[in-house]
């Protein structure tokens, strides 16, 4: 049972329709948390703009899953939808305190990246470098890229979860590839057989 649970938790990207069994052991719960926490927090921050409340909401969701065992079809979808609902509720509550935060959405930390690549080009694995580059994408764009390319959501699913148009999703992806191309094209010409 344990081995099956571990397998599906890690392979959720390839099998988005995987179901969660009703009773979770602690180690299975921990795996579930570790697998999904980071991307769910990125998603919650998209709505809440605040790391603390985002982490709270995600933790609450996991606690709820632990406390109310029942089988869930398609964990990925369930997790993202639950976070979305919790975020929208939170925003509705916050409407009474309209102190706004200036968005630093479009800043790309290009300078950090430059120094990193000079120091680490030789020892870095291509995928690690690519991960690092992706981490410097602006938050919203990065979220779209991760949700599509890594988590396997379709344009339509992303559009629904982020409440944007599919056109905007495409736009984020094109801009991501443009940036990635600029920063990573040198990787292609190193050892053509390595992946």
């Amino acid at each position, binding site marked *: 049972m344990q081995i099956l649970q571990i397998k599906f938790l890690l392979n959720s*990207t390839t099998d988005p329709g995987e179901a969660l069994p009703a009773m979770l052991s*602690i180690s299975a719960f921990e795996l579930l948390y*570790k697998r999904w926490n*980071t991307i769910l927090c990125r998603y919650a921050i998209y709505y809440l703009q605040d790391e603390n409340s985002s982490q709270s909401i995600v933790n609450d969701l996991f*606690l709820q899953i632990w406390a109310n065992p029942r089988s869930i079809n398609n964990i990925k979808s369930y997790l993202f939808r639950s976070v979305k609902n919790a975020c929208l509720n939170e925003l509705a509550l916050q409407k009474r305190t309209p102190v706004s935060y200036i968005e630093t959405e479009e800043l790309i930390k290009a300078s950090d990246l430059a120094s990193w690549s000079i120091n680490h080009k030789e020892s870095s694995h291509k995928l690690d470098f690519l991960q690092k580059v992706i981490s410097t994408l602006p938050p919203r764009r990065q979220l779209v890229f991760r949700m599509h390319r*890594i988590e396997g959501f379709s344009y339509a699913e992303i559009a629904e979860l982020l409440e944007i148009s599919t056109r905007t999703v495409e736009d984020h992806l094109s*801009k991501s590839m443009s940036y*990635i191309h600029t920063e990573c094209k040198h990787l292609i010409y190193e050892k053509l057989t390595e992946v």
Partner: protein
Amino acid sequence: MEDQIWADMVKRLNANETVESKKSLDSWLAEDLTNAQKFEEVKALWLLSGHLEPEIAQTVPQQLREQIAPVIPTQNPKTIIKKLWAYGIAASLVMAIVIIGLNFLPFSKADPREQITWKTISADAGKVIALNLPDGSNVWLNAGSKLSYPNHFNSQHLRNVRLSGEAYFEVKHDKRHPFVVESDSIKTTVYGTGFNVRAYPNESDVAIAVSSGKVGVNTKNALRSPDPIFLLASDRLIYHKTNKAFTRSKTAINDINGWQKGLIVFEQSPIKEVFEELSRRFNVKFSTKRLFKGSCKLTARFENKPLPTILKTLHTAMNITSNQINGTIYVEGGTICKE
């Protein structure tokens, strides 16, 4: 390079090209050999990105872990019944044993293997958290507050919890096991009632107000234990940390836990404490460096008002201007009071 071309490339890589995007991309590719090379580069990177792993968290946070840690179950009535039936004991005798057993269960002699672990719950700035304690008591934690409590009260005579900040308690009645809230310098002992304790580390006073029942208040670390000060419904006791003196007053019962519904009350509050309270309630950062020293104290009541309204009131009443730059609100001014 044009945005359009990037969009076309991604469409092709994703296998959802349209007639227009195909035409546009093909003509661009035909323009120049370097374009074709560029596309190959982008394709290679796109394929590479397909191998990316999702980000895995390193650990499960302590707070979460504590909440899912298994509680060793005390023997439950059903298993007692099953075992007795196995020995063929008459039904009435079983019922008698079960009834007696149920009466003792909540505070049964602790299983020596059953360890007490302490949990701490915090309410972040801007949040009010409601929680249940192991004995069924309810607690509401105000913004910027922390409560520590054991995972069970079974093996102790007292039900002990530790508070930093403000909380409203609805304590399950149990005469034999007094509920004790330890905060900063004060211990509040309760037998089954509704009461509010306000003990923020940054404030000079600790305040306890009772909405129902009876509460006894004592200072901690008293060398000889003086008689506790008893409070009944609508009584309010303030302990001044600076001169270690108590002040007693009356309060409206509805106000006692009004903070749960957005009530903010200031009574002769030093202006710095006012901004610390606003900071916690609304989860905003204030810079108070330029407030005049010797500013008057504030007495005001805000029922569920948004922050801009409160700031406007402070401007009108106390000449305090506020300016938000990036994530911080800079406040300055204030009317000087002659003490």
